[in-house]
């Protein structure tokens, strides 16, 4: 609102500023708690019960349980924090990042090996690159309409 935000015209990208940080405070601090092995164990044993210890919104809890990282980010999550959830699941950063594109693990990995996603068409919202909203979700599975959590 009052923050000047020159960074809202980049497709498929959320900048973690003070507004996002406020929105996602408890979600992200929940993620921080997963840096302790005893908390990871308790979370894995009963996700819902563990999440209910945190003053997060119901939406945030559901997004965590669904491992829907795009949704988590829309609700104020930051990827460096959210990565603790993936780590708890034994996932790599590549698996986590890939899950946000709609591609299968293999498709994403292959894209990276081929040199990564191209910048062309992905600089500004409104261009026609593969990260633009009108081209989501990406990948065969995404296009078939199935959703994959990380």
């Amino acid at each position, binding site marked *: 609102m009052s923050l000047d935000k020159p960074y809202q015209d980049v497709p498929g*990208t*959320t900048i973690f500023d*003070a507004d996002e940080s406020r929105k996602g405070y408890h979600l*992200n601090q929940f993620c*921080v708690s997963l840096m302790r092995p005893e908390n990871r164990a308790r979370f894995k044993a009963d996700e819902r019960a563990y999440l209910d210890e945190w003053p997060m919104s119901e939406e945030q809890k559901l997004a965590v349980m669904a491992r829907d990282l795009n949704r988590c980010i829309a609700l104020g999550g930051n990827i460096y924090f959210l*990565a603790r959830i993936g780590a708890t699941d034994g996932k790599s950063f590549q698996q*986590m*990042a890939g899950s946000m594109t709609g591609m299968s693990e293999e498709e994403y990995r292959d894209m990276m090996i081929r*040199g990564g996603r191209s*910048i062309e068409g992905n600089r500004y919202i409104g261009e026609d690159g593969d990260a633009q909203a009108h081209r989501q979700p990406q990948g065969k599975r995404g296009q078939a309409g199935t959703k994959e959590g990380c």
Partner: protein
Amino acid sequence: MARITASVYTSHVPAIGAAIDLGKTGEPYWQPLFAGYDKSKQWLKDNTPDVIFLVYNDHATAFSLDIIPTFAIGCAAEFQPADEGWGPRPVPVVKGHPELAAHIAQSVIQDDFDLTIVNKMAVDHGLTVPLSLMCGQPREWPCPVIPFAVNVVQYPVPSGRRCFNLGRAIRKAVASYDRPLKVQIWGTGGMSHQLQGPRAGLINREWDTAFLDQLIADPATLAQKPHIDYVREAGSEGIELVMWLIARGAMNDEFDKRAPRVAHRFYHVPASNTAVGHLILENT
């Protein structure tokens, strides 16, 4: 008097740490990456400094959302490798250099940089992966390390210009230390990568190459680049590259116009989601 002898720049991807720790460095996926650091390992053996001043960013590890320092200098005697969720990396404890760290803190705070002094801090892959890349798997790191953490998680992060000027202030601080230490300054993070959203996996080789060229030849102009250019061109996490400007600002040519020697340059795609860039610059 102490002096900065060289600067080292490198990406710091967590998967690189995992590949080293799990003995996968010879696998076809990883081999070309690690080969790019063979020369660097030898260089560091031949040019072991007395202290490494290691600029990196904490990835929501030591600093949660409760407290977010723009610049934090580690003044402790040692720093434990952090548990980032996969368990702590099996790497040596990082020994600090409290005296030099305190001296630098005093000097740059008096030079109008508003540091946060940290006496207890776990260090994450941002700090330990560059050490692993440059040193392999030693039983102890080759010298003390002063961790210097920069906020690039929550915006606003410090500008490139601010980082570059901080580098200059660090050089001045090192030069006024009364013991004849050889100090290297390392800038880590980047290069192009994006870890979030539908644009995840972005790599911009052309932009990265131009960044490396300009970092070597004209860092003062590079330091003027606004954040939005990093985000747009190099991906949301490409912003980590502002930290390289701290190391670059500490090199001699910013004072006496003698260009540094490029001892090594390397670029490789991909490591996990990231383009790996690497430079070694020596003061001449």
